């Protein structure tokens, strides 16, 4: 009991620290891609920037607009943060020699747990925008809710191909099934659909229409300040990390070493793959402009959904006839 308790606390600390440095690296990478140095004033190479940001957010005044619903206004960032953290209860990061995974809970319905918890995250955004009692947040929240539920469909369909090939919903089982061939290769279309929908689910560029600062000021979190804004911010980055972990576990072979390079430990491969996916996120942000809303919805319903179904039927035919 106590051991699990300590492990949980340590894992959460690791996740929050990863968030802090993912944010610093994003600003650095955006800086380099735009030929400027990025944050470099706080500490050597800007390494203490996350600590300075945290102190600023904690001490900043916490405002609640008088038109807001005070209880739900405070509840929304809490929901976002809790769901962002909660998924790490089942994510495995590596395995011992005997195959037992390094995870808090090794449940056999791991992928269902992930899907269930991360779907609750949409409440944080829709309630936060609605409870602010202000126009821009409401617009951002309504748009964001429709966007997230639309893309969630294709996302859950893109997992089905992986489940068919692995024959299990356990995340450890799925990684073990990729020992010889990563699912990236037989499920290439599924992976592309997953990447697109995952970027949309985490509301990142080019699908950041919930924030859309050029049209909606700050979108659903316009009225939030201080650590409540910070909670949404942490949740967004932790969700990015979760998405990168899922992509690694389901499509990129988890902690399996590529090309038989088993000399490097599995955890290092896992971290490397997650890091590469996070970098891809930041690269997207530096490169792509924002989608137009009607195109976003049309793309989700008229392109991604049929494609995901097609991928599902093709994979099913292959699995059933072999």
């Amino acid at each position, binding site marked *: 009991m106590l051991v699990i308790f300590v492990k949980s606390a340590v894992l959460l600390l690791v996740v929050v620290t990863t968030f802090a440095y993912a944010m610093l690296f994003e600003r650095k990478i955006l800086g380099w891609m735009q030929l400027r140095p990025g944050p470099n004033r706080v500490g050597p190479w800007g390494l203490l920037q996350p600590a300075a940001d945290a102190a600023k957010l904690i001490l900043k005044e916490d405002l609640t607009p008088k038109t807001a619903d005070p209880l739900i206004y405070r509840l929304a960032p809490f929901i976002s943060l809790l769901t962002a953290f*909660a998924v790490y209860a089942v994510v495995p990061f590596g395995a011992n020699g005997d195959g037992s995974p390094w995870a808090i809970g090794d449940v056999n319905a791991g992928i269902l747990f992930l899907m269930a918890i991360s779907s609750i995250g949409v409440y944080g955004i829709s309630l936060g925008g609605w409870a602010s009692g202000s126009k821009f947040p409401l617009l951002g929240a309504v748009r964001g809710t429709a966007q997230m539920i639309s893309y969630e469909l294709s996302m859950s369909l893109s997992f089905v191909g992986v489940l068919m090939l692995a024959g299990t919903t356990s995340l450890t089982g799925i990684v073990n099934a990729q020992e010889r061939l990563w699912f990236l290769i037989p499920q290439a279309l599924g992976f592309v659909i997953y990447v697109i929908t995952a970027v949309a689910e985490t509301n990142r560029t080019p699908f950041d229409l919930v924030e859309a600062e050029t049209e909606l000021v700050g979108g659903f979190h316009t009225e939030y300040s201080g650590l409540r804004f910070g909670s949404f911010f942490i949740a967004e980055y932790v969700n990015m990390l979760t998405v990168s972990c899922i992509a690694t576990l389901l499509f990129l072979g988890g902690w399996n070493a590529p090309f038989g390079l088993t000399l490097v430990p599995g955890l290092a491969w896992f971290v490397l793959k997650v890091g590469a996916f996070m970098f891809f996120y930041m690269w997207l942000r530096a490169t792509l402009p924002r989608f137009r809303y009607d195109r976003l919805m049309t793309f989700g319903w008229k392109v991604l959904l049929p494609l995901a*179904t097609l991928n599902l039927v093709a994979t099913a035919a292959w699995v*059933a006839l072999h």
Partner: protein
Amino acid sequence: MNPYLPVAIFLAVALAAALLFTVLPGLLAQRKPNPLKLEAYECGVEPTSSVSGRFPVRFYLIAMLFVIFDVEAASFYPWAVELHALKLFGLLEMVVFIVVLGIGYAYVWKRGGLAWK
């Protein structure tokens, strides 16, 4: 040991952490009250009207379609895991299911349920 016990413990720790982030602003944040700060943001001018809460009916339609299609997607999961054992029978069953689903999808498309103009 039940594999869900560690999950429950982790959820409790996550709950405590999220609660900490929720109460911390009340304890540490500075307060300099000012009636103007409590206005809803509207680009610096006084709010012209209250939030009406009315928005295009399309969003409701999307929500309803989502419920239908997501339930369908959920029914794929147990089938996908057991497809190794079900073989051709499982495949044909699901093709029938997808055809029925596809008819509904084509109908929604044709009636303009997916259009955003």
